[in-house]
């Protein structure tokens, strides 16, 4: 692994963590083509390759968001391993007419095991749940909670934005919204 490559990998990881567009571009430019080739060579279509790679980047993102994440190989290798695992899973999950052995085993598989994949899926499921709950909340609750907890806006700002007569009213509203969200989230 050359120093230069490593730097690029680190840069990309840093960019991804902060949600930088150029990093996403870069990751596609550098690492997408070989993965597309791998999937197309293994009974996949171009569209499937695109989906798989997007999922792969999401895996990377989730990993990066874990504070203890440390890249143990080249980013290229890691992404390739993840894509392979995801594609294998999709192949076997589907009509199962393809043999798993179609893609020969490689040592990189330890980089992203079935366990990792399951973990990722649980996480994704969790996110999906939360997203669903948020969407089910409706306006203005969704916006109020977003403004307060994610954008870290003050209660006064929120009070003004949503036209509450005083901050206490806004606070009560926010609390109610939060309770509803919790209820919806945990119910599922």
């Amino acid at each position, binding site marked *: 692994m050359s120093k230069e490559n490593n730097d690029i990998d680190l840069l990309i990881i840093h960019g*991804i963590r902060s*949600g930088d*567009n150029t990093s*996403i*571009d870069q990751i*596609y*430019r550098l690492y*997408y083509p070989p993965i597309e080739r791998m999937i197309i060579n293994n009974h996949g279509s171009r569209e499937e390759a*695109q989906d798989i*790679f*997007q999922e792969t*980047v*999401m895996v990377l*993102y*989730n990993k990066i*968001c874990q504070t203890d994440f440390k890249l143990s190989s080249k980013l290229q290798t890691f992404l390739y391993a993840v894509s392979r695992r995801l594609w294998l899973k999709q192949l076997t999950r589907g009509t199962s007419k393809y043999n798993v052995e179609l893609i020969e085993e490689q040592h990189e598989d330890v980089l992203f095991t079935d366990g990792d994949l399951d973990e990722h899926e649980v996480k994704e499921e*969790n*996110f999906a749940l*939360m*997203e669903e709950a*948020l969407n089910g909340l409706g306006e203005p609750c969704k916006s109020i*909670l*977003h403004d*307060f*907890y*994610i954008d*870290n806006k003050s209660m006064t700002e929120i009070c003004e934005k949503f036209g509450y007569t005083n901050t206490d009213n806004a*606070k*009560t509203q926010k*609390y109610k919204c*939060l309770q509803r*969200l*919790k209820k919806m*989230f945990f119910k599922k």
Partner: protein
Amino acid sequence: MKVLSQQEFIEWADRYQRGELSPEDSHQFEEYCAATPAHADLYVQHSSFVNDLKRTANHIEFKTKLSKNAKAYHSQQVVKKQPIIVALWDKLKLNAAVAASIAIVSVFSTLWLTGYYSNLRKATSDYSALRRDMNSVKRNVNAQNVAIKNMNNGTDSKETIHFGATGFSITKDGYVVTNYHVITGADSVHLQNHKGESYKADIIYTNEEKDIAILYINDSTFKSQKALPYTFKKKNSDLGEDIYTIGFPRDEAVYGQGYLSSETGYAGDTVAYQISIPVNPGNSGGPVLDKDGNVIGIISGKQKGIDGAAFAIKTEALLETLNDIPTDSLRKSVILGNRNLLNNLPRTEQVKKIQDFIYLVKVY
């Protein structure tokens, strides 16, 4: 310390988490948590939930960004495809051109080697030859006519006399018929019988369309003959009928035999038959007789390039022509023979009897 309601506590906890509280207040919050374990649990739960919420929000945000970028990237890829193809074409067009030219050359050389073109040419030349034949029939007839004419005109010069056309009597007293083309442009016409006796003849009447000319022997040495041995058959004869002719393709009378091959002459000409008798220049104007000794026609020409295609003007046309002659032009009224003396005679006898009535026509 008084117990807070859940709402109040969470409000407080939020402010604590966001660091909006003063140090004393923070301290107070921690103490409160320590004092009320229920609320401490609630705080842990709440903060983890808020964390989840934040993470979800970031996750969603990243995901949308990612899919947007992915879309942009892929559409860019699709656009990039074009230049790849163009580049490929640029690289390979020389090869393509070479391959195409080799293909073309090999196709045509194979066609050439397998004789396709010679076959083609043969076929087309056959075809055009056929067409030319059709077109050339008239030309051939004309050519023959011209040849015959020249031949007769050629009698001006002494040596060409041994050619001549043929004519035959239609009455015993000196009316003779021949082809119009034989006597066109003639200064004078002389008739010579097989005995070598020569008589001067006048042109009484001509019909260019039917190619018929009526002559009258106007010579003091000419004596009225015996009755004509043959008659004229007005009805059309049948195909395949056995026919013969006597003519003067040279100085001596020449007998020719054949059959009636078609009811019409050249190009569907209904006033003529097509006959299959070997005829030559000089036969023009000769009588065509059937086996019973009836005159059924007058030899008029033949088609060059086709075996056995000669033409004879039907007797009917001759009779019509005779009827057309104004009475003023006639020296004597035309009385056709109505007694056939040839019937049931062998051919040689027929020929002997007929010979006296057939003339070599010399045109000066």
